[in-house]
């Protein structure tokens, strides 16, 4: 059947003939750009955990690219060379089995996965979030509570707390104990590394460290409701000396976080400005975990039971 030459046919033809390789090249350029141009993300780590994670990420990627890139090239090459219009390509319709090829096609992925399996096993153990950072200094304990939709950070040793802002000393291991006072969230500071879930009635642990002073973006990575997008905070890593000064200053001034204050915090609110509390009720974190204080009540019901339509808000 004879087709009229329409613009759409021309486009299809043009793409088939000219742009195939250009496209592949552009893809890889973009990929390279994405991998290389990352400042501020997980590939620009600012602590030992993040650095180790990123190293494994890059090593595993490289190991796989060694397989993946030739596979892609072979795909395009075979597809192009064995096109029906190529008279020079030899048609071999009986080439349907080869023991040698079979050996190779099973061996390549098996060997790669063997290698990666080792990386996974060692990485999972070395970088277990519960594992203390081998160290030189005593870690700073921080208790993290995810609320609807705020982060509460308690410094049990100093007896202070902060909301939506985390100040830590640089170069000192950080030991986080985390829970949630409402729904599940996930504590994530991309440049420091590993994230971990916060869940009501449970405590998870996480060990991180910021190598240098700096301000790092942190957020919840687990969707937790309408105010989720504002559940981010800045982690200020400051020199150890400055940290001590900040603690001392904080203990002097600012609001108190007593039981009533905490119960008020439980109500849903979003985009709350950072606050530092000069004092926090002792044992608050344990009480939250064990249920001795109530969990977040969810959306304020306007008296009449579950609201049928709660999306009316503007």
């Amino acid at each position: 059947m004879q087709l009229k030459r329409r613009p759409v046919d021309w486009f299809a033809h043009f793409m088939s003939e000219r742009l195939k390789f250009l496209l592949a090249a552009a893809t890889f350029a973009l990929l390279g750009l994405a991998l290389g141009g990352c400042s501020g993300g997980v590939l620009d780590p600012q602590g030992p955990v993040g650095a180790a994670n990123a190293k494994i990420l890059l090593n595993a990627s490289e190991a796989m690219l060694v397989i993946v890139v030739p596979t892609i090239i072979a795909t395009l090459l075979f597809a192009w060379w064995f096109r029906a219009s190529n008279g020079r390509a030899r048609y071999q319709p009986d080439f349907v089995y080869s023991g040698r090829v079979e050996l190779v096609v099973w061996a390549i992925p098996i060997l790669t996965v063997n290698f990666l399996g080792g990386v996974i096993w060692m990485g999972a153990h070395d970088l277990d979030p519960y594992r203390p950072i081998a160290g030189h200094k005593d870690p700073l304990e921080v208790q993290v509570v995810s609320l609807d939709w705020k982060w509460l950070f308690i410094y049990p040793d100093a007896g202070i707390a902060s909301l939506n802002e985390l100040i830590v000393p640089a170069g000192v291991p950080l030991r986080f104990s985390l829970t949630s006072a409402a729904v599940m969230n996930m504590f994530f500071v991309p440049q420091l590394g590993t994230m971990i879930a916060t869940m009501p009635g449970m405590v998870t642990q996480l060990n991180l460290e910021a190598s240098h002073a700096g301000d790092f973006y942190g957020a919840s990575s687990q969707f937790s409701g309408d105010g989720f997008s504002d559940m981010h905070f800045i982690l200020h890593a400051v020199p150890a000396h400055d940290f001590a000064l900040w603690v001392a200053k904080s203990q002097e001034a600012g609001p108190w976080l007593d039981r009533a204050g905490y119960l008020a915090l439980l109500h849903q609110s979003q985009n709350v400005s950072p606050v530092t509390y000069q004092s926090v009720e002792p044992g608050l974190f344990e009480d939250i975990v064990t249920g001795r204080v109530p969990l977040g009540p969810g959306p304020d019901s306007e008296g009449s039971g579950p609201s049928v339509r709660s999306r009316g808000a503007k």
Partner: protein
Amino acid sequence: MSILGKLTWDAIPWDQPIPLIAGSVVIAAVLAVVAWVVLTGRLPYLWREWITSVDHKRIGVMYCLLGLLMLLRGFIDAIMMRLQQVLAFHAPGYLPPEHYDQIFSAHGTIMIFFAAMPLVIGLMNFAVPLQLGVRDVAFPTLNSTSLWLTATGALLVNISLVVGEFSRAGWLPYPPLSEIPYTPGVGVDYYLWSLLISGVGTLLTGINFVTTILKTRAPGMSYLRMPMFCWTALASNLLIIAAFPILTATLAMLALDRYLGFHFFTNEAGGNMMMFINLIWAWGHPEVYILVLPAFGIFSEVISTFSGKPLFNYRSMVAATMGICLVSFLVWLHHFFTMGAGPDVNALFGIASAVIAIPTGVKVYNWLFTMYGGRIRFATPMMWAVGFIVTFVIGGMTGVLLATVPADFQLHNSLFLVAHFHNVIIASVLFASFAGLTYWFPKAFGFSLDEGWGKAAFWLTLIGFYAVFIPLYAAGLLGMTRRLQHFDLPIWQPWIRIAAIGILIMGVAALCQVAQLLVSIRRRHELRDMTGDPWDGRSLEWATASPPPAFNFAVLFNVRGEEPYWTIKRRAIAAQRLPVEPRYEAIEMPANSPIGFIVAFFATITGFAMIWHIWWLVGVGLAAAYVVFVWFAWRDVEEYRIPAEEVARIDRARRQARAEWLAELSGSETGVSGTGATALGLDARAAGHGADTPIAGDVAMAGIYATGHGEGGPASKRVIVGYGFWLFLVSDIIMFSAFFAAHAVLQTATAGGPSGRELFNLPSIALQTGCLLASSFTCGLSAVATDTKSQAWTQLSLLITGLLGLAFLTLEVRDFSAMVAQGAEPQRSAFLSSTFTLVGCHGAHVSAGLLWLATMMAQVFVKGFRPNILRRLLCFNLFWHVLDIIWVALFTVVYLVGVLR
């Protein structure tokens, strides 16, 4: 509570222009289509030929249509999300969080359950029976029911656009966010009921196709002669049977939490939210392979056909498919490495996930070597296939990266993860659906799709895809998490902008797809497929006409190799003649039935009533369902007969077309480059290959058709029904296993309330056990009595079975009423929630069994021992014995362990 439950005028979003306008447009479009159908008098045709059709080809087409419509809806959601993120840098954007959260929840739900699943199931429906060389699936009416139940789910999701709201808790509603305290609206309920209802449809599809593939194949088609697509369909449907009951059980538990105040996953009274996440992913990861494996199958068919070669290393491909099928159940934990499991657990699941890359990699290489030495024709389906391989290996690589535990610690829930799963699912499932639709379209409708528009759509989709998802990979590496309604970090903004441009390109691609369809319909006479074999195909679907007659094949083939049609075709070309005309016989085909549509109608009503707490309507819906069940069971005519002359007339027309084609082909073999042969992609060298030794025509073409003597072929109806029902029972046992697993987790979560030791009344439970075991015995006696065709003894043993069952239920209800009276109601603790649910689920099965029994006794009395009634008695026997087995497990796990603990 008013007569309409929670439903009021306020449920309609009068104050929100976007859903209101979108809803009005959709309603107007639906009304316009309905009006057009009615006014042009097409309604009877539509009802007769499509809505009530049980023909697998028609059902397949309708599934694909549903999938494409929902794909469009889900794609509009995607555009809205990309647009929101572009506008929401340091700004609120145009969608408030309440609305944005619904959009991404709906996008995921619709794309997986109502776009990808219907497309994949639709293509399986259309192609698998044809490839197996048979006339329909094992249970055609059930097939129609599956379709309409899936449509019910899709309808409910779309109703939520204008009546109430959709879920705001994501496509997998993690508790406690999805529990009543945090998400009190009807959105999660819309989600639950649409998936519970469509999940039943999907499960029935799974049972139907496993039975079809294992028990009804053309004579001579051994397992290792099945086309690759049938193998992958088998693997996919086995996974459906194994995984969907878990989904049903999990969603049922969440529904019980929300509706009755149970404590499976709540924050209070011992509920365990992590259990939901484990259970949902125990379904969720196999679900990925339920979608991806058939996609692999489609590509295997396409690459082999367009390369003009058999699939390279077929047996290795089969092994890889079944390997993936198996390992897919051992990896679910990789969806939550960051939930704080120990390093051993994380590492094991990470390695198991990476192991899946082995069989997948083997598949990729085998596709590669299928192309090697081929003579590749770049028709649109082949373009999708090459695009798939290139794109999919990138997605596979990022997948293994995410299985690498420490990398996942940084990339989990980021846009990198989003890019990864879109990369694998779009490249495999979506590309495969488009490839499959283009590939089988001429078979379904008798004309091909326009190649120009198809290729334009392919290139724009491919470019658009990379333009959307490479930037999302980058943003994820920059620490951008998913589901953000707005953001403030400037480093992410350029990537979000590129992604928005990308989705516009994909939008143009979608328009090209629509144009392709419209242009092809207009040019259908030019694009007509005369021979039934437009692509120079290799498997049996190309051996029949396009579109195939209702009975698919006038005479079943006698399959003697892996590529039956290719062999027949080559022999025909070598002998330069068609096989001798077979002896035509009358064919019995399943009669159309409105049952599926009516069941789905009442399911929609029941689901809607459940969502809005309109309890009386729930009762009406369930009662109507029972009436429909009895009405269906009572039917006398299941099949209609196509006379032999009609079969002969249809098949002779097909043979005529083939003969002309063959003549044209032999003309071109003498050196004239005939357009026919090249258009068909055949050339003389290829065609003549393998037929070096000339054989006399009749000898060459003998034995192509089955004679019906000693060649195997579809099993008897009794075997098929028994087998299918047995598969249903397997799925039922798996559903119970999910409840048992929940009980194992929750049995100590008494939250200070009473434990089993204080509650369970062992003597009464022993009596219940006695009743049930005795009833199993009498049920067995009924089978013996049926064998002797004794009406009296059959009725008597069934009656005793029923009375014992009733006694069992009465005792059980009495025990549980006593527990509630002591204050041990299911709302008291998670332990009691799971005890009530597990025992209650078994009790509900016994109740349903009693209703069934009563119906069947009446039927045996009125109609006597007909073959179909005998088959049902067999099924009932299986059912009742399985209830016994489950009871024994329940007695041990709930009662004995509960008392001894």
